[in-house]
């Protein structure tokens, strides 16, 4: 069989390292959530909220998210193109360079080296490492696609290529800077231009790191899990192109009510609302693919993760455009509503799809059945309850916060001081920390289940097709 030459060992290694970085991200997230309710838990200079928060976000997005993108892309590209990887050596280099980059990022952020650009905090030497890493990855994926056996490319390959190309452009443009020492640089842009480029990057990191690759995974792992094809491939293609055309204009919705030109803000607002269409194109495609298969929500734990994941995607892509409307943004921006929105995506959409992908991959990369499906179900409920506790508590907090900030007395003075609004947040911040703890418990159950699978899971026939690779 053709698959005898597929390199699954590299996939297994990336899955393992992604889980390690994901655990770091959630653990640090829980720590910073407790630092919010008890400032005495800050231990300067290294273990303060200001230094740990970017470690939480970068470990989550780049360690867990990008790590899983590497793992699943390297798996999917082989299966969808029906050919082995173009270069196993490049993939192996990519694995260790990825870990070196993540470690270098964590260490420098802890030491206080930062560009202060959100989601792009790492200083210029690490930018160089990221670019090398991405180019190596891009070459391997694109060269593998070029030697594919089927002429027609499945939708996942389209999303993969878009993510690879777009991330390269976004990262390099936003990283443009003038180094003044080994760990200090100044942005090549100034003032509102700098802000505009930063949020063009920032929002499209959401698009091309946290959306397109996970749609590629969803479109691959849903039909593989249910055993039936997606509802419409042509609809997925249209949703893909409309998402690609629209997303790149929306970054300025992070800069509403700022000195950025008004027409750019309006254009970003308009495109943000239009984005509902392609986003829900994928959501409907997912739901319609379940026609006649909804019983699998009870019987197939993979489907639960995937359908809840796409549901969170749908909710987030309705909430996001609403937040991009000027009037609503004026009310809700800078409140705790916004992190709740982001975590709906990261803890709900992105991580649900990652967990489903890993559960699907486990029998194939370990050659063993999953150790315990009841534990997988427990994992599902813990992360669902943890995530909802997290987000709902902060949505309420955000509305309360915005209401108090905007409240005015009849003479035009503010009704509440800033400190009074802070004190009101404490119950919700406790609920957030509690939700994070539940989510962490779910993650630990997941890791335990995988550990037991690797050690004791029942061997399956599929292992005959799993060949020890070179990673």
């Amino acid at each position, binding site marked *: 069989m053709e*698959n005898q030459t597929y390199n699954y060992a590299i996939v297994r290694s990336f899955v393992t390292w992604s889980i390690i970085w994901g655990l770091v991200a959630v653990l640090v997230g829980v720590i910073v959530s407790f630092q919010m309710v008890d400032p005495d838990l800050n231990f300067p200079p290294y273990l303060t909220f200001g230094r740990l928060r970017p470690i939480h976000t970068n470990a989550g997005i780049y360690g867990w998210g990008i790590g899983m993108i590497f793992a699943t892309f390297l798996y999917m590209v082989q*299966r*969808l193109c*029906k050919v082995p990887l173009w270069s196993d050596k490049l993939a192996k280099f990519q694995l260790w360079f990825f870990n070196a980059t993540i470690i270098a990022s964590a260490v420098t952020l802890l030491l206080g080296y930062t560009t202060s650009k959100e989601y792009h905090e790492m200083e210029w030497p690490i930018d160089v490492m990221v670019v090398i890493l991405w180019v190596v990855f891009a070459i391997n994926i694109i060269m593998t696609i070029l030697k594919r056996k*089927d002429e*027609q*490319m*499945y*939708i*996942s390959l389209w999303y993969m290529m878009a993510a690879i190309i777009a991330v390269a452009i976004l990262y390099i443009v936003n990283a443009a800077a003038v180094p003044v020492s080994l760990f200090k640089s100044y942005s090549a842009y100034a003032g509102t231009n700098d802000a505009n480029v930063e949020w063009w990057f920032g929002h499209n990191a959401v698009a091309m790191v946290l959306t397109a690759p996970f749609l590629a995974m969803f479109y*691959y792992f849903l*039909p*593989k899990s249910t*055993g039936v*094809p*997606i509802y*419409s*491939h*042509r609809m997925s*293609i*249209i949703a893909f*192109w*409309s998402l690609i*055309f629209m997303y790149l*204009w929306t970054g300025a919705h992070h800069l509403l009510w700022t000195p950025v*030109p008004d*027409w*750019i803000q309006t*254009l970003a607002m308009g495109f943000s609302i239009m984005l509902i269409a392609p986003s829900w194109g994928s959501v409907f495609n997912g739901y319609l693919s379940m026609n006649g298969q909804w019983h699998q929500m009870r019987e197939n734990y993979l489907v639960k993760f995937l359908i809840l994941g796409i549901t969170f995607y749908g909710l987030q892509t309705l909430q996001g455009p609403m937040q991009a409307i000027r009037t609503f943004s004026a009310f809700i921006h800078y409140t705790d509503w916004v992190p709740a929105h982001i975590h709906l995506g990261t803890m709900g959409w992105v991580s649900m799809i990652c967990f489903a992908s890993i559960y699907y991959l486990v029998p194939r990369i370990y050659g063993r059945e999953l150790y315990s499906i009841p534990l997988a179900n427990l994992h599902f409920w813990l992360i669902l309850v943890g995530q909802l506790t997290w987000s709902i508590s902060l949505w309420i907090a955000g509305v309360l916060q915005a209401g108090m900030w905007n409240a005015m007395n009849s003479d035009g003075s503010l009704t509440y001081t800033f400190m009074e609004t802070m004190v009101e947040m404490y119950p919700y911040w406790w609920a957030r920390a509690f939700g994070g703890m539940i989510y962490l418990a779910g993650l630990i159950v997941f890791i335990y289940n995988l550990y037991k699978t690797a050690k004791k899971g029942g061997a399956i026939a599929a292992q005959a097709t799993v060949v020890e690779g070179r990673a």
Partner: protein
Amino acid sequence: MDLASIVYLGVTFGMFVIFVLIVIRTYSKKRKDEGEIAKYQMLDDD
């Protein structure tokens, strides 16, 4: 509007035209089978 905003909107409109052409091509009756074949092929490989 200054030149920059006209160029910005012009590029936006140009991309919209390209998008319309993609929609027309994807949903042309002649390409119906070709457009859907990949979803069946991806299930074959296992």
